[in-house]
């Protein structure tokens, strides 16, 4: 279920019921191989497919992602003639990696749109009830938390008079990273206490508040992904 915006809830609620979050996890695994061994045509197909998928969940997010990708592509184009410089070369390579694996990041974004309850229900359905399922769910639970904390740290830095600077990357990283890590440890401490006291370790039968099914759409998407993977591997051998 999606609750970021009440107006969009109906549409998104239906989508989350139609597409199993495990399908997205499966696509992430398939695409990570496709993007590593595949050619440009498979890359473009993957990119268009995941952007289409993202737009089904949130047109605003899809539009923003397309804009970001265009900026990255533009920067790569601008930096290409100056590859002799070590700094420019490393920035160029970093941007190229971002662009190359963009479909995976986009799929991650789609997965983060599912509620924790949906994710855990999907993992329970396939018998993954322990550390892996909870770990992945907690990871996605932390994403909005981290962006909220980053804003707070940013405000804290402004008040204290500390400035982030690309010319002092280690200092800047330290300023953000230290309070963020301590906060995350603090939250994870409370969160662990909370889920233990809510019986997450209980050894009996477990149920799910939401019904998570594998539908025709899920099967089609996985089969499509596998065909694309087959095509990528076939080109190699």
């Amino acid at each position, binding site marked *: *279920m999606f*609750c*970021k915006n*009440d107006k969009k*809830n109906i549409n998104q609620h239906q989508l989350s019921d139609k597409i199993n979050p495990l399908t997205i996890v499966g696509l992430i695994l398939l695409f990570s191989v496709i993007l590593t061994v595949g050619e440009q045509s498979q890359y473009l197909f993957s990119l268009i497919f995941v952007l289409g998928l993202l737009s089904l969940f949130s047109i605003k997010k899809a539009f923003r992602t397309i804009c970001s990708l265009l900026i990255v592509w533009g920067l790569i184009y601008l930096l290409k003639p100056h590859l002799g410089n070590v700094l420019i070369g490393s920035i160029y390579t970093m941007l190229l990696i971002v662009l190359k694996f963009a479909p995976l990041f986009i799929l991650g974004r789609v997965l983060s749109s599912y*509620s*924790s*309850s*949906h994710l*855990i*229900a999907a993992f329970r359905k396939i018998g993954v009830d322990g550390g892996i399922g909870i770990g992945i*769910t*907690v990871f996605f*639970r932390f994403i*909005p938390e981290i962006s*909220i*904390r980053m804003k*707070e*740290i940013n*405000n*804290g*830095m*402004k*008040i*204290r*008079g*500390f400035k982030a600077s690309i010319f002092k990357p280690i200092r800047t990283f330290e*300023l953000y990273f*230290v*309070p963020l890590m*301590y*906060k995350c440890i*603090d*939250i994870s401490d*409370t*969160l*662990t*206490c*909370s*889920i*233990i*006291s*809510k*019986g*997450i*370790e*209980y*050894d*009996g*039968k*477990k*149920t*799910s*508040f*939401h*019904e998570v099914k594998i539908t025709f759409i899920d099967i089609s998407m996985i089969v499509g992904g596998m065909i694309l993977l087959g095509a990528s591997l076939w080109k190699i051998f």
Partner: protein
Amino acid sequence: MENILEAEIKSFHYGEDLILKNLKMSVKKGEIVVLTGLSGCGKTTLLRLLNGLIPYFYDGDLDGEIKILGKDITAYKKGELAKYIGNVFQNPKDQFFCDVVEDEIALVGENLGLDRDTLKEKVEKAMDLLGISHISKKSIFELSGGERQKVAIAGTLIYDTDIIFFDEPSSSLDYDSIKHFSEILLRLKAMGKTIIIAEHRLYYLKEIFSRLIYIKDGTICDIFPNGSLSNDKCKELELRTLNERELISEKELIVAKSYIKVNKACIHQGKRTLIEELTFELGKSEIMGVIGSNGIGKSTLAKALCGLSEKYLDVSYGQKQRERLKNSYCVLQDVDAQIFLDTVENELIFCKDKNSESDLEKIREYLKDTDLWHKKTNHPQKLSGGQKQRLAIITSFLSGRKLIILDEPTSGLDYKSMKIMSDLMTEKAKEIPIIIITHDLELLFKTCHSVLMLGDKDYKKISVKGNEALIMDFMDKKGNLLKEKNYVK
């Protein structure tokens, strides 16, 4: 009546530190028991022992026995205690595993294997009981403190748990939410629930607790059945007040030349205008409290005044955002985000580019006054919540800015720590004005000369002295009162 909970603790150690000793208590079904005492007295540890988090999550050596429903707590299977015990932690936001309200409430039922239809029914019933059905699909990140707490309480009702533990439940609530919370406690009591609350604030519990257990130095010092604890006794034990209506201001209004001027400031949150045309002045040694219900715009006002938001404001210490950032200092509610350096002393030394000997002497003095001297070489992020709050506040005092704004500086602090903070603020206000955003009336009456009351559509700045009853009424009835009564400055 049968004992639902029994504890006999000969000793409990964290490493080599003795935390609890010679402690014996029992709780009967349907009782509301309050555990109180100064910070560090051992009440949180006791709560963790009673709810089973020690030894399941936290380590420690216990010599003794704890029984829940007549059975030794260690004899329960992993996770089984969730059937009998519910917990509401100090900061409900951090305890939520799911990001949607109804999912979070259902979590305990999912873990304990309630079938879907029963679960849906129970979730709806719990939400109905607490009046939160309208937010069932909302994200937990969008909820107010009071709503979050109701969600956490609803979660404890899914499996009909007998015992509910609350750890400092009022620390993240505004005055009105605390009032609602005490009503919820009464409803839970009527349902036959046994409630154990670790808490500093006592005024909202005075009518409803069955027994108040006073803990000092890791052991039970006194037990007060309802009606036997007086406000004078609270003062003697350095506890928070039992009766806020008896509080009187300790500060006279300072009639001094205006030092800070805010003229027709409009405060926005996104596109929404929260406060319109706010005008006030502050004298050089004035401490002004800001009160009003949650969501009225108090914290947003603080951010605007210190230059974190609002590009342009007509204020005397800097109209542009950058000028305000340079000339004012705001201690935010979450002080963790304002602590950056590797030791407590460095945190204070780096307030200035160069420290003179008198600056260093001032730092030493502050560290001693705030009981942080022995922690000066510790990592500041490893301090307790109250210690971090004190550190952030003395950092603001050393910043050398023209105005200091403190957002909820005493939430979750015991009386003794609150008094230390109040004395420090009073001392600092001899140099520069301070604005305190607070729901803590004990702090307000002890520290502030004036108060800015923010209502729904209006605001008023008045002297605290002589207006105690009006301020209490405003806190009780909130914004409407401003229209009903004509306040006299």
